[in-house]
């Protein structure tokens, strides 16, 4: 018995050793980012690495706001992210209700249109999509980014799958009680679908906030750029301003970090659910 216990102890120690090593691998870049954001450019590469700067340069975080229109970028990104997320949540949960709980003509044909496009990556049709948007006069507008992101097939898919898990009898009972379909959607389905809505929220939020290629293609005017494009532009132009680059990077991570920590449970569950079922 004693031998076994000792064996277990050793396994535990190895396990923690591995875990700590992995965590370091994951965290060191972020720690380095934070520490460099408080340094002078010339001190960033000094050896040995000073993890806690002796003389923290808090003004990096002040300077960055005037060096590039960071406030404008943040505002643009926040505006786009919020609008896209709201539209996505509303239109997907609405459409998915019909696909999951109602019978109507051409249901299968319409659904097939969604299924067929899921296998086509956005990169395949981004060129014709851009030409179309341009002919609508949407080039270099935020509306283009919104139209691009807000109506994904993914959202409809995910919500439909969730609704299908809710018993039909619930809807039938509500219909007998004289509720209209809109009332059933609003008063019964939506409250039940909170977990799925949270998952969709975090996915859409993170995707839109971090999107790069879409804004890169569409947004040309500096005042309209998003945080990601603006940050990339700044790095391209001032590649040796290490301290400022890192300060801007830290700032760009904060909103995602907050949303992620707040809704992490749903994120993980959402990946697991869509992942295992396919």
């Amino acid at each position, binding site marked *: 018995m004693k031998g076994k216990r000792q064996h277990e102890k050793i396994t535990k120690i190895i396990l923690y050793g591995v875990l700590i090593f992995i965590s370091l691998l994951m965290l060191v870049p972020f720690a380095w980012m934070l520490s460099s954001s408080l340094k002078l450019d010339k001190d960033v590469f000094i050896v040995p690495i000073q993890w806690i700067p002796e003389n923290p340069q808090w003004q990096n975080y002040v300077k960055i706001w005037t060096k590039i229109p960071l406030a404008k970028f943040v505002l643009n990104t926040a505006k786009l992210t919020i609008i896209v997320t709201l539209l996505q949540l*509303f239109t997907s949960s609405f459409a998915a209700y019909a696909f999951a709980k109602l019978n109507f003509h051409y249901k299968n044909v319409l659904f097939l249109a969604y299924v067929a496009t899921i296998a086509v990556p956005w990169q395949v049709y981004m060129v014709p*999509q851009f*030409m179309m948007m341009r002919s609508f006069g949407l080039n270099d507008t935020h509306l283009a980014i919104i139209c691009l992101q807000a109506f994904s097939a993914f959202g409809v898919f995910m919500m439909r799958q969730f609704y299908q898990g809710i018993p039909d009898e619930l809807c039938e009972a509500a219909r007998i009680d004289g509720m209209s379909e809109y009332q059933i959607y609003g008063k019964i389905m939506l409250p039940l679908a909170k977990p799925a809505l949270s998952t969709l929220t975090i996915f859409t939020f993170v995707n839109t906030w971090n999107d790069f290629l879409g804004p890169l293609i569409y947004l040309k005017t500096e005042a309209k750029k998003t945080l990601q494009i603006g940050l990339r532009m700044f790095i391209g132009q001032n590649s040796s301003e290490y301290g400022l680059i890192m300060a801007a*990077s830290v700032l760009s991570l904060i909103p995602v970090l907050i949303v992620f920590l707040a809704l992490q449970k749903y994120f993980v569950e959402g990946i697991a659910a869509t992942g295992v079922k396919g």
Partner: protein
Amino acid sequence: MAAKRKTVDPAVAEQKLAKLTPRLKDLEARVAAETDSKKRQKLMAQIVTVEEKIKQVKTGERMTRQQKRDLIAYSFIAPNFIGFAVFTLGPVIFAFVLAFLKWDGNTAMEFAALDNFMEMFGNSRFTASFKNTIVYCIATVPMTLAAAIGLAVVLNQKIKGRNFFRTVSFFPYVASLVAVAAVWNMLFSPAKSGPVNMLLYNVFHVAANKLPKWAASKDWVMFTIVLFSVWKNMGYYMVIYLAGLQGINAELYEAASLDGAGSWQKFRYITWPQLQPTTFFVTIILTINCFKVYDIVYMLAGGSNGVINESAIVLVYHIYEEAFRNWNLGYASAVAMVLFLLVLAVTIIQFRGEKKYAN
């Protein structure tokens, strides 16, 4: 309802009924004669439709019950579907057509037959991007898979701070690419003073002139990109594996323990075979995502103006540069078709596999 009712014109109603009643009789006769249950169901559905229409004519209501139901359903779908049809479905169809056209976006389109595809094979940037995309895939998929499954097995143990470790390994996936790529570029700076090179030099005693130049060297750039993408994305696939692990029956492990199996044997003979559907699914998703790679390459190898040279160029970047820098829209769409075919091939394998694992 009364408000919606229109006055019934008896002559018109009579006429309609004269048409509908024989149709109903005909259908009923066919149902009686039909033996195949599926066809029977179809006929029954038709009968219901005709009966509703007769009822509609008799009462003079504007719409049948089914039509009303359809209308409600369409009102649910419309907000999403209209946006989807205009901004996704339309461009998808257009993309297939565009691959066979010559167009610069301003002048008229010309039919080009297979010219775009022919042009591709003579273009060294296309061949390089095709090769790099495949190399990237072949290197990234197994490494990410191994890292993800290892991480998942370790994080599935009963240990303190498990949730903390899960959060930590997942965070790089949600963190914005521009920010983490900026750090990565500094950590893997090609200079001797770069932190990673410093580590290699001081701890592993790699000679100063042999220190890798990472993203700045044409031999190391793909390796750097692969390393980065494994680091960034493994947390995502780990979460899928964790869900798969939770689905394994604990009794299997208990039985194996009684038989004296060690940790490795348990992994080899229980975990790995049991996770096969998950591994299959992860491989598919991972491969498709690898084909679509673009932003990672752009950030790490793009330089200040974002131009990528032939040592690191990938398919999506080639599409981007041809479309939005050279305005070769037809050609860019032809390259996009190559990308589509790659993804389609993987998707077909997925459908085959899903049938296998569904049982």
